[in-house]
């Protein structure tokens, strides 16, 4: 190992807070006028944590508002200690924060759901661009050809199943209102999150619509989606399709 490599390894271990890492790096830092070497090192140690806390606060600002400064700081510090960043872009640092919250705050699963919803909105915001397909694009397709169409989901589309009223919490917090009491649904509700006109949108889905979109997402043809839904669901499905085409949820069939 080169001297440079050793120095960087020691420095990084110290900043990450690895137990027993301080003496090695302290011996490599020069004592200078004005501020002791350990205080100079501490500037980097503290800046690391405050930068990552700030990144999490930005990605999860509603979760932060909901649980308050102290609880959020505790959750963030636990996450920072367990998940050093592996990505060049700070944008992705918080990717596992909802999963962390689910484990760390197991008694409050709605907090993890709120965090997961926030992250999903962020994913929709800067997901890859793609041309959405509209009703006009399909006008020329013969009725008998419809069954073979395999639509795609727009890259910004996410289907998020939530057991709690996390979205209502998010909405109240966004409007500066007192969030409602938490409430668990009888069955999980699937939310469609997607981007249109450069902004993330979301709406809750009837179970049949959620199921149809999931099938489209896994590559089913339109005939397969109809078959799975059953004959009696056909008119409903036509209504869903109209909405998807109007809202930019699908990409062109192949």
């Amino acid at each position, binding site marked *: 190992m*080169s001297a*440079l490599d050793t120095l*960087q390894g020691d420095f990084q271990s110290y900043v990450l807070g690895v137990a027993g890492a301080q003496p090695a790096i302290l011996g490599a830092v020069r004592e200078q006028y004005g501020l002791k070497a350990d205080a100079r090192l501490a500037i980097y140690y503290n800046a690391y944590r405050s930068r990552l806390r700030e990144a999490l606060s930005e990605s999860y600002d509603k979760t932060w508002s909901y649980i308050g400064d102290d609880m959020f700081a505790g959750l963030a510090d636990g996450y920072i200690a367990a998940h050093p960043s592996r990505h060049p872009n700070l944008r992705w640092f918080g990717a596992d924060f909802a999963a962390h919250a689910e484990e760390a705050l197991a008694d409050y699963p709605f907090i993890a759901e709120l965090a997961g919803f926030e992250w999903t909105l962020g994913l*929709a915001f800067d997901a890859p661009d793609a041309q959405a397909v509209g009703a006009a694009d399909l006008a020329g397709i013969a009725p008998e050809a419809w069954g073979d169409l395999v639509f795609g989901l727009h890259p910004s589309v996410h289907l998020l199943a939530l057991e709690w009223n996390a979205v209502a919490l998010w909405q109240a917090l966004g409007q500066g209102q007192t969030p409602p009491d938490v409430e668990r649904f009888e069955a999980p509700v699937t939310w469609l999150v997607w981007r249109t006109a450069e902004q993330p949108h979301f709406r809750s889905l009837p179970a049949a619509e959620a199921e149809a979109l999931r099938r489209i997402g896994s590559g089913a043809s339109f005939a397969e989606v109809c078959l799975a839904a059953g004959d009696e669901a056909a008119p409903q499905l036509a209504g869903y399709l109209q909405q998807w085409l109007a809202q930019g949820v699908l990409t062109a069939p192949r």
Partner: protein
Amino acid sequence: MPTPLTQPSPGFGLGLRTSHYHEILAAPPAGTGIDWFEILSENYMVGGGKPLVMLDRIRRDYPMVMHGVSLSIGTPDGPSDDYLRELKKLMDRVQPLWVSDHLCWTGTHGTNMHDLFPLPYTEEAVAAVVRNVRRVQDFLGRPILLENVSSYLSFEADTLQEWDFVAAVAEQSDSLILLDVNNVYVSSVNHGFDPQAYLRALPARRVQQIHLAGHSTQAGCIIDTHDQPVADPVWALYADALRLFGPVATMIERDDNIPPLAQLSAELQHARALAASVLMERAA
């Protein structure tokens, strides 16, 4: 006088920040007092959506330069291929005047610490950086600029002064310099060196761009916080830099406590006026 290796200065710019998008688009480009924008490369290394829409829209009206924070040019293994591919992809989209990052390291063994850590000023570190810069420049097909960072500590292992380290890297790797005047000032206070000696040691023909920014004073140290207007001693040092290096593309960085665009533009006009008077004096 040695031939300059730099492009002519495009004038005076600002860092592009999301909170200014609407003000930028609402004004005719000739009316903002801003000649060009510097983007933070990583902010636009995303799939799509509004960030890239705004980038393309503003790029139509303004020249841009790209400034990264995650190259980690001072880590022995050097930048990852994935990162370089992303950087190149963005470069092809933006067609920037130039591409820069920092003379530092940001993490090792696959971890990104998202900070600009100081390097030991040793021949070994010069060699490692030079090797990495050559690889990056070959990959991108153009010279890169490296910015001097502010630092709060120095290493026992140092055998060079920081300014000699900066100059050695630039000369040996045939790269260019992004001179952060605020960082020179901050480090001169934190380490007790003469900032004039720093400037005089730099190869003038390699100074392509200047950064100005504000800092905060804390107990025993000055921190490079980018959350304040440019401080008076930094303006004075900027004037000294222009006397040495002539007209150099200059921009103001503001990353926190961000005021409205008009206020930052007014600060930029101060840089413009100061540069005009210094350069007139220099020509006389």
